[in-house]
């Protein structure tokens, strides 16, 4: 038990911080309740899915700057195809968009592995490519979304006693667990961490580094597609201009305890970090803080928490 707590101290710390923030929100706004949690979950969904995708490539020792642009491609593709489609057709469309995400991510990974150009350069270039593709598909916000898709993450669970639990959170947990847990427990999961912590050592131990890297980027693309669909879920349309998800996802990954060099960290921490950042944003709106100051506060909180964590980590190592 003690060892488990030590191993997961960062994640536990984030969970406590989130609980305190939610408590503070309740104090600021006594009316904060189920509907507040619901709007928090819906706002966090695209950010959380982008962050999960980003966390996977970062764990594998890379970074994907094209994530927001891939989300835009997925969002507009889904929205354009779903306009006027029947429910059955829209299910097929959603599956196709997810495959498209996998393919986009795999292309990113393939280019990195084949060209041997650093990840940051390739994905920066691909950012512009995917942005152009999104505009080519839809040059202005438009399209539609199937009603069933729009209602997936809206409101509370339809279960007595659990109606306060937002469907958005359940959706996020189910999707992430369904994709990540089997991988984490398989050979691929070990390999992702192995190439992230030391690619050369992994190669010498017989890990197919190139293939694993491509798989990491493909997974990132898959989560980007889920994120893009979640944007369409919320707005009911597709937007070709990428939203603010790139920097937000990198920030949440770092805040969530994933080491930027790769090889260390999990997915729960980054997801908690996303919820923390969204709650801070909500509190700043509730307190009607000057909008120009709000951004500074958001950034300062992030730096403070990460620095606080670094101090704790060095202390822990010394004792």
């Amino acid at each position, binding site marked *: 038990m003690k060892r488990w707590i030590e191993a997961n101290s960062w994640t536990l710390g984030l969970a406590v911080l989130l609980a*305190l923030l939610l408590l503070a929100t309740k104090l600021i706004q006594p009316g904060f309740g189920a509907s507040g949690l619901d709007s928090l979950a819906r706002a966090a969904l695209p950010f959380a899915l982008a962050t999960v995708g980003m966390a996977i490539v970062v764990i594998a020792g890379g970074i994907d700057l094209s994530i927001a642009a891939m989300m835009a491609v997925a969002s507009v593709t889904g929205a354009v195809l779903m306009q006027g489609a029947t429910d059955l057709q829209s299910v097929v469309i959603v599956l196709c968009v997810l495959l498209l995400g996998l393919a986009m991510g795999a292309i990113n990974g393939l280019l990195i592995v084949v060209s041997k150009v650093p990840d940051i350069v390739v994905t920066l270039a691909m950012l512009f490519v995917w942005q152009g593709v999104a505009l080519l598909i839809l040059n*202005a916000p438009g399209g539609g979304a199937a009603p069933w898709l729009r209602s997936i993450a809206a409101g509370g669970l339809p279960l007595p006693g659990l109606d306060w639990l937002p469907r958005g959170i359940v959706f996020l947990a189910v999707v992430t667990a369904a994709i990540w847990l089997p991988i984490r427990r398989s050979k691929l999961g070990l390999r992702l961490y192995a190439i992230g912590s030391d690619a050369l050592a992994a190669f010498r131990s017989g890990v197919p580094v190139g293939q694993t890297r491509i798989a990491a980027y493909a997974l990132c693309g898959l989560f980007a597609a889920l994120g893009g669909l979640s944007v369409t879920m919320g*707005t009911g349309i597709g*937007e070709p201009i990428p939203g603010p998800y790139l920097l937000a996802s990198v920030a949440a990954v770092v805040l969530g305890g994933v080491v930027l060099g790769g090889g260390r960290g999990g997915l729960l921490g980054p997801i908690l970090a996303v919820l923390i950042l969204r709650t801070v944003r909500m509190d700043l709106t509730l*307190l009607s803080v000057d909008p120009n100051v709000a951004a500074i506060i958001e950034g300062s909180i992030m730096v403070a928490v990460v620095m606080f964590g670094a101090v704790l980590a060095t202390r822990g190592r010394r004792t």
Partner: protein
Amino acid sequence: MKRLLLGTAMAMGLAGMASAEGYKIGISNTVQGNGWREEMVCAMKAEALASGKVESLNIAHRNTDAAGQLEDIRNLIQAGVQAIVVNPANADGINAAIKEATDKGIVVVAVDQAVTEPSAYILSNNQTEYAYLGAKWLFTQMGGKGAVVYMRGAAGAGADNDRDVGFKKAMAEFPDITVAQEVFTGWQQDQGKQQINDIIAAGVPFQGIWTSGIDNVIVDALVESGAPLVPVVGADNAGFVGQLSSVEGLQGAAVTNPGSVGGAGVALAIQILDGKMPAEKTVLVNPELWDNVSEEGKAKLAAAANPNLSPEWPVSVSIPGWTTYTMDQIIACKGPGE
């Protein structure tokens, strides 16, 4: 640090509860750092202050997409505001949150651009008329014939679509006018300048230029390249209005597109909260045209010029019949309690 955060939050929360009565209004805007939008937000603050009926403004003002605006509107609902004035990211994307707000009895006013959610009030500049007025003046100035460079706004934006309708209406009235080139400036100064330079360099003949508000850089490009100064139509941005009186030989007209429509939106929200319902759900503010050819236009231009305004702000800082603040109040850009 956590304890400090909590303590501060509690103190601020209590302070909020203890203050005087009055309306609590929320504002949501998704473009930050653009002169027009900054004027809009300042007009909102100034109007809330001048009305004397607003206790506090909750302002969500950042660069984000429609999904981010959904989050902001829902946070404003949580904050317990009685009205929300919003400049929508697009016409359809934020309908879900607007519906949630109006279902809770919150008054929602969309300013500048329309939304398709029927429960919202819309107070917008009449963009069709904006384009028609300017294009008609331009075509008349060109003697009813010749080729015009048509420099539009951002592809797919609601305001751009409406302006295109107005422009086409004027085209239909002048059968001998043709379009030399049609481009989207994206309402970006640098992009617009590049485009007009390309058109001049390509030697495309044109006798007039209609712009969707990216105007002063176009005049700059004509002057710098030594191209003939054809008539130019733009918006009432301080820079272009200045050029209309300072650039020798330039014939042009500024069509008003007041950013102060934000202040008018706050005024409308207060009226509705006071129980005075407008006759229509959609209110359009009609533009005016100030040219530097007629004496009347020159007088209007001279009256509108104000050296205290930021050069990127539209000079039409108030909307008669709607806004009640003074020039000093909007320039100060302070809301209630600031």
